[in-house]
Each structure stands twice: as C-alpha cells, then as structure tokens.
C-alpha cells in the first residue's frame, strides 16, 4: 500500500510503510548510508504528517519484513496481545502521541498497553515526538527488575561498573572494580567486556568477580560479556554465571550475523534460570543493542535503523531481561554522525524501550572518529537522568581502555545523583552504608583501613 500527501504544489508519495517510516525519521547518517533517508527537509516533515494519519492497526497488517522470512517478525506478530491493545486500537500514530502525552497515560495505563504495542508502532510514534516528548513519556514509564537487588524504582538509577582491561589482567580488573565500588558504582551489574574469547580466561574472570562478591557480601550481579554460546558452555562447566549476556539486533539475518537466534537465547536463559543464583528475582538476561547493527550486517531489509533497533527490543522483551543497554554512540559516525544525532538516538532508544516495558539503560558514549565530545555526553546524560534512565555505564574516568571509546564515569553518575536526587538500588545502598563508603547516600572519603582495599592483597 502506498501513502501520499500534497504540500503546496508538491505531491509526496511513499511506496510502502517502511519507506514512509524511513523518510519520516529525523536525519542520521546511517539512513543516508542505506539510501533511505528523506531527500529534503520538507519531504521529511511530509512523511511525518502522512505517518501521523496511519492507523495503528495498519502495523499489524502491513509487515515491514515478511513473516515467513524473519523470526523476529513472527515473534512480534505471534506475541501481540490484542487485549492489551484494545484501549488504543482505534488510534492513529498521531493520536497515539497525543494519548501518550496526556494525563490518561500514567505509569499503570502505560504498563497495561505495553504488550499491545509492537516495535513498529513505537518507532513510528517516536518519529513524531520532540526530545521533550521522548523524555516526558519515558519518565512516566515504570519498569522494575530484580536479581540480587531491585532496579528501576521511582527516583532510582543504577550503574554498571565496567572494569575492563585490555589483556584481562586480574589485578588491573580488580583495581578498576575497587575504584568503582569506592565511588559507589556497581548496583546494576559488574560487567567485564573481555579481550579474550577463550573459555578458560572467561571462567577465571567469572570466578574472580564471584569471589569478591561473596567475600564482601555485595548485593549485586556479575557478568562477562561474551558470546551466548560461550556462556552456555561455561554454565555446563559449572562456572559461576549470574547473567547471560548477548548483543542482539532486530532482524533474523542480523542476529544470524551475531551467531544467534531466538532458540539459543531461550536455551541460555533456561540454563541460567536453573542455576537459581538470583536472591530477589529471576531476571537473568543482559542484552546490548544499538542503532545501525542491522545495516552494518547488511541485514536491514530497507528498514530504517531506528525501527530495526526497536525490533531488537521485541527480542529482548521475550526473555524478561534484568538490563537492556543501548550502546548509542559506539557504532561510529557512519550511523550517528555527531553529538546531535547521538543525543536524539539515545533519547529515542530509551523512550521506545521503556514504552515496550524494558529496563532500558544507555551507554552514553562516543568514539574518537565521531564528531562528538564530552559536552555532548553531558547533555545526553542529564537528559536521560530526567527521563528516568534505568542504568548508565561507569568506566574509570570515562575512558574504556579495552574497547577504546569514551563512556560515562563514576564521577558522571555522582553528578547526576546529586543534581536529580537519584538513588542506588536499595539493597546495594544499604551495603555501601554498611561498608562506610556512603553515609545517607553521600560518598565518604576513605582511609587506607577501608576493608575493600584489603582485597588487593589477594592479587600480590
């Protein structure tokens, strides 16, 4: 089916729904690279106007990627909850935006309609929303997840402690981990991106983190961010696996580029659940995503990169994750060219994930070949804090020495906490108080007697 609108002397026609969505997307380099972006500013707004009048039911009838050829499409359609959809079934995309911003949409009504929303509906409405709309509606969404602590409570924000080291050196990792804990970070997860993909090396890292956690009775979870098949193998070998990590994308073909499918994710989730390591909940999955991954695997079907991204959230949603992290600026300038595009994408991803009911965090980041800097990250950090971000990343000094990019620092998290009064997961906050790292939530200066510092003796 085609879509058309006349503006002054010009008639704009869009051949199908995916073309309409692509042309309506705020400008970004990835859609230009794919050759699907609007060719003028007016065409973009024309597409947005046209999209505003599309009934939501159209998204259930006109699939962007064929049902028969893509298991993510099948998942989206087969898991759609018609009952949850009923209250908004009569709306258009523009009508959905109006409803989302109205007082009728509150935490409980938003949570109730979430299973009735498909990624394509959510992506579509986000294209009609300004940054303040994305922030306001996301801030009304409430998503709570649990493993060894409780995340996503109102007025709370978590931090993933990311103590990466370029050679996975145990002392180097431990030093960064201590630094983070002493700066009050690590409630979302302590998660290492390994340099090696050897099972032995990963087993060693898992064992080290688990030992530290047990020794100090830290109410948090650990993760080594390796391929899901490696994690499965490690679970079978008896390694202490808390969370199963995997990068995911929004099309079957892109996932196959990652060497995964829904079945293997399900198998890994089941294996982790059977370990019963969570103490207050059983959200055992940790997913990472990012706009551009489907295009970079040449697996986007002509669908714009933001819509592909939101389809990845359908994959995530199926496995009740503890954490979902959009690594927004990591992929590089081919997909998000500059600070403006990165900020917009970060707000979109957070909004879309939250609206679908996901514990959405963001790796607020950039690479050295992108047109972005610390000022842009400060802006996105502050905006996402106001939007109610589930968690952010904490890397020593914002400099990830293993992955070679800039993320947010422990200091950045403290800035946001003091600016907006954001608290840590309550179990973790209690632990920090018990260790005298914080008092009434505020970081305390430490002397050399701090018990955590004895940890390094183990590594001498």
């Amino acid at each position, binding site marked *: 089916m085609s879509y058309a609108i006349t503006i002054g002397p010009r008639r704009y026609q869009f051949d199908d729904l995916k073309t309409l969505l692509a042309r309506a997307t705020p400008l970004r380099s990835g859609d230009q690279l794919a050759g699907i972006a609007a060719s003028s500013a007016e065409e973009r707004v024309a597409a947005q106007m046209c999209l505003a009048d599309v009934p939501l039911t159209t998204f259930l009838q006109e699939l962007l990627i064929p049902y028969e050829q893509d298991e993510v499409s099948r998942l989206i359609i087969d898991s759609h909850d018609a009952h949850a959809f009923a209250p908004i079934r009569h709306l258009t995309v523009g009508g959905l935006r109006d409803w989302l911003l109205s007082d009728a949409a509150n935490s409980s009504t938003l949570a109730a309609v979430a299973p009735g929303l498909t990624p394509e509906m959510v992506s579509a409405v986000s294209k009609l929303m300004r940054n303040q709309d994305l922030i306001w509606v996301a801030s009304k969404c409430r998503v709570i997840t649990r493993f060894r602590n409780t995340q996503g409570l109102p007025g709370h924000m978590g931090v993933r402690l990311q103590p990466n080291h370029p*050679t996975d050196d145990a002392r180097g990792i431990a030093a*960064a981990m*201590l630094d983070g804990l002493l700066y009050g970070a690590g409630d979302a997860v302590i998660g290492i991106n390994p340099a090696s993909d*050897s099972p032995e090396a990963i087993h060693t890292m898992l064992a080290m983190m688990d030992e530290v956690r047990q020794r100090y009775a830290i109410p948090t979870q650990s993760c080594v961010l390796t391929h899901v098949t490696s994690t499965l193998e490690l679970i079978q070998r008896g390694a202490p696996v808390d969370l199963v990590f995997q990068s995911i994308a929004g099309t079957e073909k892109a996932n196959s580029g990652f060497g995964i499918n829904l079945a293997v994710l399900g198998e890994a989730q089941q294996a982790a659940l059977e370990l019963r390591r969570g103490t207050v909940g059983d959200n055992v999955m940790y997913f990472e995503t990012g706009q551009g991954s489907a295009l970079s695997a040449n697996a986007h079907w002509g669908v714009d990169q933001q819509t592909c991204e939101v389809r990845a959230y359908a994959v995530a949603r199926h496995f009740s994750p503890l954490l979902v992290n959009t690594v927004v600026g990591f992929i590089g*300038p081919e997909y998000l*060219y500059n600070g403006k595009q990165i900020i917009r994408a970060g707000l979109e991803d957070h909004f879309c994930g939250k609206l679908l009911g996901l514990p959405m965090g963001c790796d607020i980041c950039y690479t050295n*070949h992108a047109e972005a800097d610390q000022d842009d990250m400060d802006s996105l950090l502050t905006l996402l804090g106001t939007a109610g971000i589930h968690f952010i990343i904490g890397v020593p000094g914002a400099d990830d020495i293993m992955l070679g990019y800039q993320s947010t620092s422990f200091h950045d998290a403290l800035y946001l906490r003091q600016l907006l009064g954001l608290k840590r997961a309550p179990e973790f906050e209690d632990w920090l108080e018990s260790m005298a790292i914080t008092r009434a939530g505020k970081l305390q200066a430490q002397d050399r007697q701090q018990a955590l510092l004895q940890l390094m003796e183990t*590594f001498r």
Partner: protein
Amino acid sequence: MNAPFSPATTGNSAITEDSWQELASHTVARIALGRVGSSLPTRETLRFALAHAQARDAVHTPLELSALSAALQDLQLPSLHVRSAAPSRAAYLQRPDQGRRLHPDSRASLLAAGVEPCDVLFVVGDGLSARAVASHAVPLIAATLPLLQEQGLRVGPVVLATEARVALADEVAECLQAAMVVMLIGERPGLSSPDSLGVYLTSAPRVGCMDSARNCISNVRPQGLPYPLAAYKLAWLIRAGRGSGTGVALKDGSAAEPGWLQLQQQLALAAQQD
C-alpha cells in the same frame, strides 16, 4: 600518556584525594582520580581533553606505505598496494560499504598480478589508526611466519590496503585465491591506546562473508597483547580453523596449551630483567 600539564594541586583543599592511588600501578585505567565535590578535579579534566585531542588527530593521519614495504622486504616478503573504493578519509568514515570493496583499479591489478594461490594471506589495512599498523603489523608478521612455516603453510605476498575496513580482505583474498586471510588493521584509537592493532582471521574468504565467520584477536601492542603471544594465538587459530573453519563456532583454546604458558613465563622473566 604523560601530559605536559601538571598544575600544583597538592595542598588544594577543595580536592578529596583517593587513598588507593597505588592501585593505579596495576592498570592504565583512569582510577583514583580524586574529586571536587562529586566532580573531576581540574588537572584530570584537562588531562582527558588532551588525550581526546591526540586521538582525534590520530584518526586523520595517513599510512606510510613505502616504509612498510621496505620493512616487509627485509623479511623476504613482497608486498602489493591496493586501495578501497572510498575516495577520501571523509568518505571512508561515513561509507563503510566503500571501505569494504576494492577500487576497480586495485581489483584489476590484483587479478593481473600472477600470484600463486596460497594457504595464508596477510592483508594490512590502515583502518582507524595508521599509527597502530605502522608500529605493530610487521613485528607481528615476523613473529608469526616461523610458526606458519612449522605448519608447512604457503604464505602469499603481503597486501597493503588504504581506507580499508576488515571485510576488504575478503575481496583481496578472493582475487589472490587464498585459503585463509589474516587482516591486520588499526583499531579505533582509544584515549589510552591510540596504536592498538586488530587481527581478523577468515577461512574460505569471499565477498559477503559475515563477521560471525571470523575470529578476532584484539589489542595487539606491547602494552596490550605482546607480539609473541598474539602470534602464538594466531597460529593456533589458523591450525584449528584450517580443519573446522573460522567463526563463532571456533573457540580459542590457545591459552590452555603448554606452549602459551611457557611464552608467558618467558615474557614475565624478560620483563623482570628489564
């Protein structure tokens, strides 16, 4: 990296210094930075800004091909030069599709080069850090060659590629009929590692190979994964990948080998003697 800027901050009572500063000897990560309230002290915010400025500059420095060719000649390795379809650095940064394909002239010259089919082909690509390639590509090849000779493998000429992405090696290898290709490429420069070399191994390379069909060794440089260990790992993966193919199904088991441990011990001993 030591910044020339180090204002006298001792005795600056606004700064809460961290009592775990000696832990910084275990990692180049920016730990124990201290804080002013919750924020970074002035010295740290400027040290970071300098590192970012240097990394930005590294991205835009071009690769010196003649020096690399000469160094390879010393290893008795002939080299060929190719370029990708990306016409400029700016195009390279925004058009990965162009960086993955050969310029038509380069493709034609490879096809006309009359090179014998080989078991392993090295391609050296500038990627995002020419500095990484200039420093580490030749030493890594030199350390790997004897290990490949032990396996009785035929190694082709080294192909030097500019404005190159990882997948460019697939087309190069297809043109030269290589059974496996090793792409040595400059990784994204980090603030603390502007010279990190990435290694991608692909069996049965052809245009359109997916990334899941490769094995990767990252961060090759003396302060990261040193040459002898990287070479050992690469030779291990080549041996294993020749049988079963490369990709996510091939798990790197090199660190479980006795030879790996020996090398590590030798390196540790050498470091002590330094």
